């Protein structure tokens, strides 16, 4: 069997011929009047010209499909099943969507054990659609009730909901649908391991191509050098790295220099910190000073859930304990008492990302540290100063050797652990488990293409083309910028929605003006986009 597979795989690869930009085709799996076919009127916005909820969903989905299609090469169509369903939504949480590869193929190459590949990747490597044009390569689904109402009439996450714009300008409280689709399709294209993270067992006993590059820094072992028990321990060990050569080469291009909260004076140390989704971002310029422990005079004075005397923390960094009330409420009370910055000490191990609270609006920069680090600072008070400080030679989200870290929390988060970049990654990455407002997957997919390249995908090396005309804008660049892919996706959307060539040109003219104004293309590239659009009939 193995020899047969080897022959099959290799012979196919030899004759795969010149690869094309991948054609990612969404397949509408929704019934009439629902989900992608929802006729409810919706005003166009954010560059999405659709006039109904269903149409805006389809346009955003097609845009995401075109972005990935432009970035990757494949001779075989990539069919992605798309649907909206009323997924679970209650007071505790909302299922936004899901996705994964549908078929998996066992490929053989010399020197490697038989290995599982995502269907679309296997097709690209072999050079043909192994399903023979039937079925789908990726399954995806999204919550139709998000921000609206559940089938039982109850509200689903009031105040939130999808933003279908294509411009990345997601309003506060909304979730960018394009980012989520880009994230989920990426899982189906290759950004996922297939093994069982609960018992460490590989799927069906086979290695998979993603996991081949995963390394346990704690034991200094590759993923498949470990036993099932070893993998179970590693997945909660907090120190897994992706060691693909392309990702590793691009880590310095993408990730920021690592920074810590550095204490000095009567306590010292470098402390890992978490960020807040409210207030101004903490920087070396705005986050430094003498620390004072919050005391609001209540029964739990250091939790800061009540107002403190005016001026109590003037010009200081207020240290407040987690608990009882929302983070932003603590920050607001400290700010009102004059604090220039706020440091939240956790009440357990680890650091946390702090969400906003709609009832207040704190503007002060706020960070969190672990309980142990908070205790260190408290023990030194008064006389402790803190500041954000760089750690030379280290990058945010990479290990000390420069490899990208993967998400490996304790306890294991089934379906989240292992198949994402670590949450410490900075700037925020598309394939972190959190979809943050700072993402702009319409232009930047950071280290994701590099990971695909490590797995065997070929990235399109040239410039964006409109109807065969070279715009001079690279489709994908090292570091994950996909401005050229955006040009092609936008041209497709303009073409589909324009009534005539003049309307198409107007659509593209407005688009290239926005690109140039935002500095994403230079004037020469903008002119070529316009010129290519004029010729595209």
């Amino acid at each position, binding site marked *: 069997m193995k020899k047969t597979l080897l022959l099959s795989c290799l012979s196919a690869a030899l004759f795969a011929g010149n690869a094309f930009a991948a054609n990612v085709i969404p397949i509408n799996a929704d019934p009439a009047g629902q989900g992608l076919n929802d006729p409810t009127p919706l005003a166009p916005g954010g560059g999405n010209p659709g006039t109904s909820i*269903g149409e805006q969903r389809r346009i955003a989905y097609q845009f995401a499909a075109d972005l990935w299609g432009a970035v990757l090469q494949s001779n075989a169509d990539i069919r992605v099943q798309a649907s909206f369903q009323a997924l679970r939504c209650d007071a505790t949480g909302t299922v936004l969507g899901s996705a994964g590869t549908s*078929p998996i193929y066992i490929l053989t190459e010399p020197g490697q054990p038989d290995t599982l590949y995502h269907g679309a990747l296997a097709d690209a490597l072999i050079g043909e659609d*192994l399903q023979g044009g039937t079925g789908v390569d990726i399954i995806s689904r999204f919550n139709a009730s998000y921000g609206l109402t559940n089938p039982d009439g109850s509200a689903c996450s009031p105040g939130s909901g999808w933003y279908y714009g294509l411009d990345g300008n997601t309003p506060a409280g909304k979730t960018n649908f394009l980012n989520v689709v880009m994230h989920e399709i990426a899982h189906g294209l290759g950004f996922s391991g297939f093994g069982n993270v609960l018992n460490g067992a590989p*799927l069906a006993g086979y290695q998979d191509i993603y996991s081949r590059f995963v390394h346990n820094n704690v034991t200094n072992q590759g993923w498949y050098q470990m036993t099932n028990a070893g993998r179970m321990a590693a997945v909660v060990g907090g120190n897994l790295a992706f060691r693909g050569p392309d990702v590793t080469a691009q880590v310095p291009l993408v990730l920021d220099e690592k920074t810590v909260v550095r204490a000095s004076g009567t306590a010292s140390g470098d402390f890992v910190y978490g960020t807040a989704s409210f207030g101004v971002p903490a920087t070396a310029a705005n986050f430094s000073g003498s620390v004072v422990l919050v005391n609001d005079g209540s029964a739990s004075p250091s939790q800061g859930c009540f107002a403190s005397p005016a001026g109590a923390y003037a010009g200081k960094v207020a240290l407040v304990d987690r608990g009882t009330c929302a983070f932003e409420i603590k920050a607001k009370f400290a700010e009102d008492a004059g604090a220039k910055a706020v440091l939240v000490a956790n*009440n357990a191990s680890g650091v946390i990302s702090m969400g906003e609270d709609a009832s207040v609006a704190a503007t002060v920069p706020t960070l969190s540290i672990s309980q142990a680090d908070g205790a260190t600072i408290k023990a030194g008070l008064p006389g402790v100063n803190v500041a954000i400080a760089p750690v030379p030679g280290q990058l945010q989200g990479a290990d000390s050797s420069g490899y990208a870290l993967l998400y490996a929390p304790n306890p294991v988060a*089934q379906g989240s652990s292992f198949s994402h970049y670590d949450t410490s990654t900075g700037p925020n990455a598309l394939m972190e488990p959190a979809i943050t407002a700072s993402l702009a997957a319409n232009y930047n997919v950071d280290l994701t293409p590099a990971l695909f390249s490590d797995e065997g995908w070929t990235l399109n090396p040239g410039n964006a083309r409109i109807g065969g005309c070279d715009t001079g804008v690279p489709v994908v660049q090292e570091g994950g910028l996909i401005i050229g892919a955006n040009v092609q996706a936008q041209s497709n959307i303009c073409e589909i929605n324009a009534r005539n060539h003049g309307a198409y040109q107007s659509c593209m003219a407005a688009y290239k003006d926005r690109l140039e104004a935002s500095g994403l293309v230079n004037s020469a590239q903008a002119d070529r986009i316009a010129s290519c659009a004029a010729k595209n009939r």
Partner: protein
Amino acid sequence: MKPRAIKQVLLTAAALLGAASIVVPAAAQSQNGKNNRDKADFVRGNATSKAKRVTPPKTEQEAVATRRVAARGIVELQLPEDRMVNLVAVHHADGTVTYQHLAEGESLPAQDKQGEVK
């Protein structure tokens, strides 16, 4: 696995195994049959862009049972539903909202107590 690496290996393998007479199937030249008109079909909600929903096998055991030999003798199986992951926005009692993935059938986490680490 890089295509060019595979090709290099194949050049050697083909010589050793006498596979030089393998004929290229026409389909391998290009299967990118879709064009902007097809894309317009999806965007416009046309019937040609629609298909019956595909559902994956529920468990690894069921997935292994789907194992079959596909084109070119390559073995195919389906990803089980329990390896599909859900992206979830979880609302916490202290006002935070976190996003995480959740396996199919796994319960949403109970609402956090104040101060509980997520």
